[in-house]
Structure formats: C-alpha cells, structure tokens
C-alpha cells in the first residue's frame, strides 16, 4: 500500500527526483517536502476513491507521512469491514 500511495503522491504532485521505490515512507510531507495543505487534500481525495474509504477532515493534520496515511487507510478499512 505504501508504494501505491507514494506513486499517487508523485503523480498528483509531479514530484521529481523520487520514485515509488525510493520514496521514504517516513518523510514528513509538509515539513520536509513542503507540500501545501491543498495539495495534500488533493491526494487525500484521490486516495479516498482508490481505497473506498473516507478520511475524517479532522484527521488531515495527522496525514503527514506515507506511513501515517497507509496506517489510517488500514484502520478505516478495518472499521468498514
């Protein structure tokens, strides 16, 4: 899942010099990559469709790494099932 999330991040935000395989899943998207909150929201909306989950708006500030996003998706999927 982490690899696919990284792939979507790279695709949506047109990130350069990084591939899904080299993406550090612990990298802070806001502080280290400088991703804006609106860009992060865009990625979240794409992921919602991809994984058929709905992120709580209040959880957005916690979605700061690929790992955190993946964990959140797993929790949401577990709740649904």
């Amino acid at each position, binding site marked *: 899942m982490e690899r696919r999330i990284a792939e979507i991040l790279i695709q949506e935000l047109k990130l350069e010099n990084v591939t899904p395989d080299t993406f550090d899943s612990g990298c802070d998207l806001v502080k280290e990559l400088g991703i804006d909150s609106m860009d992060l929201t*865009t990625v979240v909306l794409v992921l919602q469709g991809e994984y058929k989950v709905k992120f709580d708006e209040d959880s957005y500030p916690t979605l700061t790494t690929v790992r955190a996003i993946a964990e959140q998706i797993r929790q949401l999927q577990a709740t649904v099932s």
Partner: protein
Amino acid sequence: MDLEVRDAVPAQSPVGPVVVPESAPVTFAEILKHPDIAARFQQIRQYFFLRESTYDMTSRCNVRCDGCYYFEGDKQHALDNVDVAAWRDLFRAERDRGITFVVLAGAEPALVPELLEVCYGEIPRGAIASNGLVRIPASVGYRIHVSVWGNDATSERVRKAKRMLERQIELYAGDLRAVFVYTFTRENIAEARPVVEALAKNGCQVTFNMFSATVGYKGPLTHTAESLAQTRQTMVRLLADFPDHVIFSPYSAAAHTDVRSLHDLFSCPYPRQNSGQFGLGRTFRQYRSDLSWVREASCCVPDTDCADCRHYAAGSAIVTARMNRHIGSADQFRAWLDYVDTYLAVWIQGYKKSPNLCAVPPSPAQAMPPAIQGPPR
C-alpha cells in the same frame, strides 16, 4: 449562461426552491474526468502554493465608517511602527517563513506608501484594502481593493466623506490594479445597480462583499434573512447584466448570502477558530501596526462576529480551503471551482476570470458535514 435567480438560491433559503444535485459520482477521480472540470482544476491548482498573512499598516485613517472592523477591539490602540527598516525585516522574515501572499490593510494603508513599497519589494504578490481616496503609487504592483458602501449620498452618511464614488473613480478608473468592492448592507441593496452601472461605464471591475457585523454591533447595517435574499438576487442579476465588469460567481452569491455564516457553513480555518497546525492554522498571522500579532485573535477580519461573518476576504480562504467538502457531485465541484476562480481574479494581479462553469449551484449547506447540517432553517 442561464442565471435564473429562483433557481440559483440555495436549498435552505427562505425565498426559493430546493435545488436537487445531479446524482453523485463515486470518486474525486471520476469528477476530474469531466474535461471542463479537469482544465479548470489544473488552472487553479497552480495557485495552491499561496500562503497568506495580513498586516495592519497603520492605525490612521482619513474616513470614519459606521461598523468599521478596524476601530473595534484592541488593535486600534496599537502604536504605529513607522520604521521602514523594521517593516523590511518583518517582511523578509515573513517571506522566509513561507508567506507568499500579503493582504495589507489597516485603517488606511494608502497613507503609508513607503511601507507598501517595502513590502512589495520583499513579497510581490498581494492585495491592499483601501478606501480609494488616496492614490497608491504605481510602483506598488499589488491588487487594490477599493471599498464602496453605496452611492455618494449613502457614503456621506455612513462614511462621512463627500463625493466618495466620484473621487474613487477619478483616482482608479483605468488602473488595472483596482477592483471596486461593493459591500452590501441591509440598507444599500437598491443602490448597487446604479453604482455598478457607473463603475462599468468607467471601465472599472467590481466584486461584492457582505457587511459582517463586528462583535457587539447593533446598528442598522446588519443583514436579515430578507435582506440576504434580496442581496442574492441583486448579485446574480448584476453578474448576468455586467459580465465584463462584475467578478463573481453564482456560488459566491449563494455562499455569502446564506442565512448561516461562513463559519457555520464551512468551519473557519483561521487560527481564531482553529487551534490546529494544518493549513491556515499553521501559517496565518494577522499583524497589527506595531508589528505584534496574537494567535487567538488572528483572522482576516479581526473582531468580526463569527456568527455574522460573510466577509468576502473570509470566504476567499474559508470556502477555498474546503475543497474536500465540494466533491459530492460534479456540479458541486464546478461551483467550488467558480468560487476559487473568482477569488483568484479578485486577489491576484494579472489573473483573468474565466466563464463560470456552474450557473445553478447546489446549496452551500451541502458542504456542511452531515452531522451538523440539522433540519432546514
């Protein structure tokens, strides 16, 4: 464009019918498959990097308007810092902090042009909120928002200034930086058409604002449900009749004239209402003229009563930040895109408004989380 007023009112308006949205697509990705939406989204997302803060440049003003937000609360008592070097240091620090867009206000920022030039030299994107009675030098390339509160008779009564519109037009007609901002109060709705006609005749651009009461204000300018509905109809008709001069969208009209405030509809993300560390809550500051700022008081129009806030500046951040709440249908997202397109055209020098995509917007109430929507009011 079909701008039938009855159809453009929001679902829970006291004056119009319910607008039923088209059946909802399943995902955001599906919404983005619509070519018009995809193109507009790519256009506006280039501006996602904008990070705003606001600055009171001076506590001095050359008019005294009833209901003025500046002369409420503590900020009016700040001792002006007039040291150009101190302001330059502040704006450099702001730029280094990641601020890419400034809103310069005050009291009247046109009274301190040397400070405006310093700011422009450090952060080249921004807008100035001015009463338009003193010309801002051409060397300051920001958008200039010239506030209009009615015709000259009304302005003389409410703002205590003679020939206000006439003088504003004399100073700013033909100036590509200028956008005239007509603030609808409960009392001046009928004056909007002749004022917009005068502005259009002089080639001026105009957008709309809503009077939003400051905390404790009990005067006659505050809107009622009836005046909100009348304002909405007036806005939509003026947009239809003056498409080359009015910068607005049907969804802007719906969102700003709903009986609920912007905060009630969309949950304000400014620090004053948002203690979190995401988006505006993380980066926004509102500086006073002594260069201090207070997190708890920081929002775009401090001392406004949040329960009555329909301010255009507030909406420009509040509605735009809620993209995630506008993906219930393709038309809802089109309405949001129109809103953001309007925001960019009003605030960003050189950005041109595109034709609106959604003539009959869904109710802004659909952007509220289901848990707090409640029964129709």
